[in-house]
């Protein structure tokens, strides 16, 4: 059950809500977005099998608006970001966003009434950390930290730390390993093939899961 909760916590990072014109306290913004996302997931209409695509699309849209994929991609690529051309960077951000989507969006569908409590926040200039706890239906608490930064008056999430494990640190280590042992081109190739495989697998996997 804890695995499910973890997967869900990971999934929820993509669900952080919609853009707001106002820039308030990070927690308020985050909470508004998560609540909005949960509403989509709890909607009985949306739970029907036929609605899977639409629900995914809705979730994806929210994720794109609130998640700073560019920043996450840049930080994950770390030292290797500087030597990329603008075109390469653009391509990488797109591939990376796809990777996050296919890793987490399917897990969001596991949502089953877990509660989220907001523990506290720390603001330091244009950066903030919002600490939350995901409480599973069995009462297990999973600490989830959202690292956000202020961009054009909006707080955007660039990293999620679940059980003390950072998403960026995880991908940074993996990318660094691939780039140093082979090359950047190899990494891009790998990400592209995965995406193609995923697109081919998706329809069959979805029917077998249900």
């Amino acid at each position: 059950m804890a695995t499910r909760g973890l997967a869900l916590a990971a999934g929820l990072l993509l669900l952080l809500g919609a853009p707001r014109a106002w820039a308030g306290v990070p927690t308020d913004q985050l909470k508004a977005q998560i609540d909005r996302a949960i509403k989509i997931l709890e909607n009985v209409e949306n739970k029907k099998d036929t609605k899977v695509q639409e629900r995914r699309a809705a979730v994806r849209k929210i994720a794109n608006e609130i998640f700073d994929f560019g920043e996450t991609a840049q930080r994950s690529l770390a030292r290797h970001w500087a030597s990329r051309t603008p075109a390469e960077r653009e391509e990488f951000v797109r591939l990376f966003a796809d990777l996050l989507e296919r890793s987490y969006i399917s897990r969001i569908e596991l949502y089953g009434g877990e509660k989220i409590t907001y523990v506290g926040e720390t603001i330091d200039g244009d950066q903030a950390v919002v600490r939350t706890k995901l409480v599973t239906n069995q009462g297990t608490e999973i600490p989830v930290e959202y690292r956000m930064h202020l961009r054009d008056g909006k707080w955007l999430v660039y990293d999620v730390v679940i059980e003390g494990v950072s998403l960026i640190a995880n991908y940074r280590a993996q990318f660094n390993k691939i780039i140093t042992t082979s090359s950047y081109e190899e990494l891009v190739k790998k990400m592209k093939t995965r995406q193609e495989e995923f697109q081919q697998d998706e329809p069959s996997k979805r029917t077998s899961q249900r």
Partner: protein
Amino acid sequence: MERTRVNIAVGVFLLIGIAALGYLSIKLGRVSFFGGGAYEVIADFPSVGGLKAGSAVEIAGVEIGRVEAIKLVEYQARVTLRIESSVKLQEDSIASIKTKGLIGEKYLRISPGGSDKIIPPKGRIREVEAPVDFEELLSKYIFGKV
């Protein structure tokens, strides 16, 4: 004549012994030789679980400094690091507390970032990862499965 030779031999042996002792105490005492050429940065962790003053700070497995001090600030652990001045840490570097092997000692690993901004001396590493508490995780798995 015989006696002098024995005396010299004993003296040399003693000197070697003292030199070995000195070497050992420097090695074990973890005296930092980059005392002058180092700078301090801080990092706040929700928990340091086993990290101690004197623990190693590594990038890619290479020691680049040591943990200078750990103290409690606002119920968080504030870790002061001494980093060799030749090593620059980018603003988005991540400091993680890791374990050597499965049950080894704790050390602090820094994964360098890609930002243009460098953390200045007395600056702070914002991105941190606390050590994973295996016992806690284990109990979650055990008690979670009801």
